[in-house]
């Protein structure tokens, strides 16, 4: 049997990772936490609008089952239902716990938690802390982990990047290889089980609402080591982001939850200032097309509507790909609840959104797909678990707003104890469990990259990857375009082999670390475009004009990509979806009944 105290490695210090760490430390396990950035700077900090749970504090008759149904319906029936049901049932207890940790949730006059509306539901189900809920939740969990750290139960490795899992002769995980981002040293760390909580892969699309570290590199490394990557083609494009030079900055759905409205002038040549355009001369297209949900239709629906208004109707503002998101009519106390995001707009654009409508356009936002996991959050590699945005479960073909924070915490809370359970039953490793061989493999990779003689710049390859992915694999997809994208990625992989790093030093070499991530991004990009090409239907965020309907007969299935060494390309399998609780039905948000 394994040692009495299981040793678990958690990779990634966002909400999912910290949740797993807390559960393991609480249960007496020994946990090492690896993160590229200080965990308090993880991407969860960017979540804005809130966290869902059917607390039913507004007398609306909301229940965890209704939350479950909205989530499954919102995800167009692609999510396995059993874990989603469990998550929704745990929602109220998770909110209570966060409240007890001191999260400054907004309150009602009576001192209870306040709830706001969000997309894809008709209930007030979203608890929030202003418009910086992710920041507040991340900090609360970070504080609890700091407490465990000061008690010696958690060892943090901040500034270390996960490179690969160490697999023994039977294929079970025995640790990781990580790189110190200052000394660039490679080192192996032993573990009985590891939990991958490394978030989404926005960087594959160049510009997105994601943070710089969201490259999907860790997931892609594991995929190349034999882990299934599931539903890669499902990428959420958020309807309301501020277009920017370096990234697309999110304008939270809470802006619409608090009463914000999306519109364009009815006359495409209208040159007046937006505030001087009378109500009757504005086209509130979401409210017109979706009278029941209005501005709070799910994100994929709102994104396609904006895309249609701009590109089919030619109604973008000043002929540009932008529409108005307007909160200028809201009462000051409503605007006050949105302070955090209104400040972002003001700082980065220069206009005051309290007074003038914001100009927004859809932007790549969330990775529904991810590492395939079973209902215990374990991948097909024994001892490798995953949670949060890095895994594929929960959100199906489209994530509902304010479900991500909940799914991260839920996933971490399942993965932590399940990893402990697995570790306790693990047979002792034979020999060094594969440590030396994996370290050599990673060192050789580094040497190749450092000694390459070529002319290619990794940042240039990244830019071209982002352009291709955004053009062919976001809102609207055609098979010809997806094939073109795949060919382009193959070309980029070839060019990657000719990268000549301008910085070959071995101290805090950020472009070297980036070049390593880039290779993994290229491999994962192929999973995304090939998965999209093979899925000849439209479901949730995956939309093909040539196949506009959902096709349950052929495609009510999880896409599973497996890396094939010989062809250096993904191979695909499909798995039936668990529909044991709710029978699939057509997904129509335009119906008024």
């Amino acid at each position, binding site marked *: 049997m394994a040692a009495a105290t299981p040793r678990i490695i958690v990779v990634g210090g966002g909400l999912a990772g910290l949740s797993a760490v807390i559960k393991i430390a609480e249960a007496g396990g020994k946990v090492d936490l690896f993160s590229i950035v200080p965990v308090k*700077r*993880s*991407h969860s*900090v960017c979540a804005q609008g809130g966290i869902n749970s059917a607390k039913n504090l507004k007398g609306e008759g909301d229940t965890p089952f209704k939350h479950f149904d909205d989530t499954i319906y919102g995800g167009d029936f692609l999510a396995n239902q059993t874990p989603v049901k469990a998550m929704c049932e745990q929602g109220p207890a998770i909110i209570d*716990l966060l409240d007890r*940790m001191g999260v400054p949730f907004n309150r009602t006059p009576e001192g209870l938690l306040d709830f706001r509306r969000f997309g894809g539901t008709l209930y007030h189900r979203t608890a929030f802390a202003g418009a910086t809920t992710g920041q507040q939740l991340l900090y609360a969990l970070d504080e609890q982990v*700091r407490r465990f*750290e000061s008690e010696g139960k958690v060892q943090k490795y901040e500034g270390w990047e996960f490179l690969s899992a160490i697999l023994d002769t039977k294929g079970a995980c025995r640790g990781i290889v990580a790189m110190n981002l200052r000394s660039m040293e490679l080192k192996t760390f032993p573990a009985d089980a590891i939990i991958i909580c490394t978030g989404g892969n926005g960087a594959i699309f160049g510009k997105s609402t994601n*943070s710089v570290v969201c490259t999907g590199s860790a997931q892609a490394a594991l995929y190349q080591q034999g882990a299934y990557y599931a539903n890669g083609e499902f990428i959420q494009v958020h309807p309301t982001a501020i277009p920017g030079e370096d990234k697309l900055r999110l304008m939270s759905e809470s802006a619409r939850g608090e009463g914000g409205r999306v519109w364009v002038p009815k006359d495409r040549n209208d040159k007046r200032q937006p505030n001087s355009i009378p109500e009757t001369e504005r086209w509130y297209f979401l409210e017109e097309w979706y009278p029941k949900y209005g501005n709070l239709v799910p994100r994929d629906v709102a994104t396609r509507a904006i895309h249609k208004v701009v590109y089919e109707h030619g109604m973008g503002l000043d002929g540009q790909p932008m529409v108005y998101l307007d909160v200028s009519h809201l009462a000051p106390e409503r605007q006050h609840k949105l302070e955090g995001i209104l400040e972002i707009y003001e700082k980065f654009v220069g206009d005051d959104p309290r007074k003038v409508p914001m100009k927004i356009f859809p932007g790549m936002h969330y990775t529904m797909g991810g590492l395939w996991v079973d209902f215990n959050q374990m991948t097909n590699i024994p001892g490798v678990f995953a949670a949060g945005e890095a895994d594929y479960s929960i959100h199906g073909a489209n994530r509902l707003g304010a479900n991500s924070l909940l799914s991260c915490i839920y996933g971490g809370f399942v993965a932590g104890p399940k990893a402990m359970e697995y570790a306790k039953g693990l047979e002792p490793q034979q020999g060094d469990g594969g440590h030396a061989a994996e370290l050599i493999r990673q060192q050789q990779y580094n040497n190749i990259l450092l000694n390459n003689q070529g002319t290619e710049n990794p940042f240039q390859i990244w830019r071209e990857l982002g352009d291709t992915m955004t053009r062919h694999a976001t809102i609207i997809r055609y098979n010809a375009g997806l094939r073109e994208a795949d060919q382009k990625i193959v070309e980029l992989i070839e060019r990657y082999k000719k990268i000549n790093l301008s910085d070959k*030093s071995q101290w805090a070499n950020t472009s070297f670390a980036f070049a390593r991530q880039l290779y993994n991004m290229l491999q994962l990009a192929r999973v995304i475009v090939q998965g999209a090409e093979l899925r000849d239907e439209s479901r949730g965020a995956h939309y093909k004009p040539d196949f506009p309907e959902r096709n349950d007969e052929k495609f009510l299935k999880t896409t599973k990509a497996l890396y094939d060494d010989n062809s250096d390309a993904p191979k695909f399998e499909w798995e039936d979806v668990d529909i044991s609780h709710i029978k699939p039905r057509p997904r129509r948000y335009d119906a008024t009944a």
Partner: protein
Amino acid sequence: MPTTIEVEIKRQNGPDGTGAVENFSIPYRPNMNITSLLGEIALNPVTKEGKATTPITYDSNCLEEICGSCAMLINGKARMACSALVDKMLEEGGGKIKLAPLSKFPVVRDLAVDRAVLFENLKKVKAWVPIDGTYDLGAGPKQAPQIQEERYPLSNCISCTICMEVCPQFNDVTNFVGAATIGQAKLFNMDPSGSVLKEERLRALSGDGGVQECGFAQNCVQACPKGLPLTEAISDIGRDVFVQKVKDFFRA
């Protein structure tokens, strides 16, 4: 409209390396920020004089001023690189932008510095709520909206350390913990459950490097990118520390 952006960057290849300045001339585009400017250099790392060099090392992550990573000196002033817009900085710098690392923290390389001291300080003041466990214990205590309104701004601290950088008292002589840590102590003292550790927090802030080191320069509150009420927190904690000292004196 300028055709190029002139940038002067203070570089240092490691903690012990000496500083050297490099100049860059980047093609102008409207609506750039400092982080996208640094991205342009990575794409083509060549100095103004045409000499091949290396991409600049700096910390960044969210690029929307919420993760706290990218604090640096821009035109001599401590601020976040992501929300520092090139057009404004050019105007301010008279057509030129100067970048340098924060001056009060050990340099890692170029514009990246080591700010771990803040996270250590947060341990000293036990900036957390000591919950019994993560199992389901039902709802937390009711809390008046007024308390949330007072706590929330303090909870917006992004740990950028700009308040420490600009503070004349934050140096090796005083060992001052700095405004951010004091703000967090107040945040947790105000929480109904967090207040159980109030006395320990106040004692941690009463000795060497504690709240009394503050010299009321008020630089922190002016420089804080998130507008935290830092001087208010310092004066509240200062008062509480004094009361605690008196109590401890009579108890002894």
